[in-house]
């Protein structure tokens, strides 16, 4: 799973810890999602989308779609 989380976070000047606090998850969780090593649940994906006020598909996309 690819995501634009790192870019969106950087645009707002947030650290991984800042974003983790806003989403009520650990910093390690943010890192795992940003590096594409963990696919977030729909619940967490919706939470991320609400936080950035963007549609889910703008933030997350699967590998096949990108290729």
């Amino acid at each position, binding site marked *: 799973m690819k995501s634009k989380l790192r870019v969106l976070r950087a645009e707002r000047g947030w650290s991984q810890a800042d974003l983790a606090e806003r989403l009520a998850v*650990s910093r*390690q*969780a943010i890192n795992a999602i940003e590096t594409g090593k963990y696919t977030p649940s729909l619940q967490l994906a919706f939470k991320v989308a609400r936080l950035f006020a963007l549609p889910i598909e703008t933030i997350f996309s699967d590998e096949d779609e990108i290729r």
Partner: protein
Amino acid sequence: MTTRAANPAWLFAGLLAVSAVIGSTVGGLERQHPALIPPAAAAVGATAACLLACAALIPLWRRMDEVARAAHQSAWYWGGSAGSAVAGGLAVYATRETPAHLAALVPTMTVNGAFAAGVVACLLIQIAVYGVGWTVWWLSKR
């Protein structure tokens, strides 16, 4: 801001401390008065204590984020599977080996001690592989 009481690490440490106090107290009583608690009551008590500890950890589990839960689930799978595999192997070995050879493996142990050691060995393997599985899972997500 997370208070000490609401922090999962403190909850876990507190539970460990309470378990240690109860365990050492009951163990001390048992040593002084070996027949104080009947075996069946001790077994039921120990099982109940484990179940209570599991119930006490529910808040910790609920507070955990989904990534941390996934790590524990993966570790649980590998730890549980490894423990079951070893227990299965030991059970097959114990049913096929001659009593004399089995007794020679644990010369200084009573039957009770050998049986308990087998069970504890399975638990320790579960815990050890759980720890390895948990660590590997997190390292793979870095």
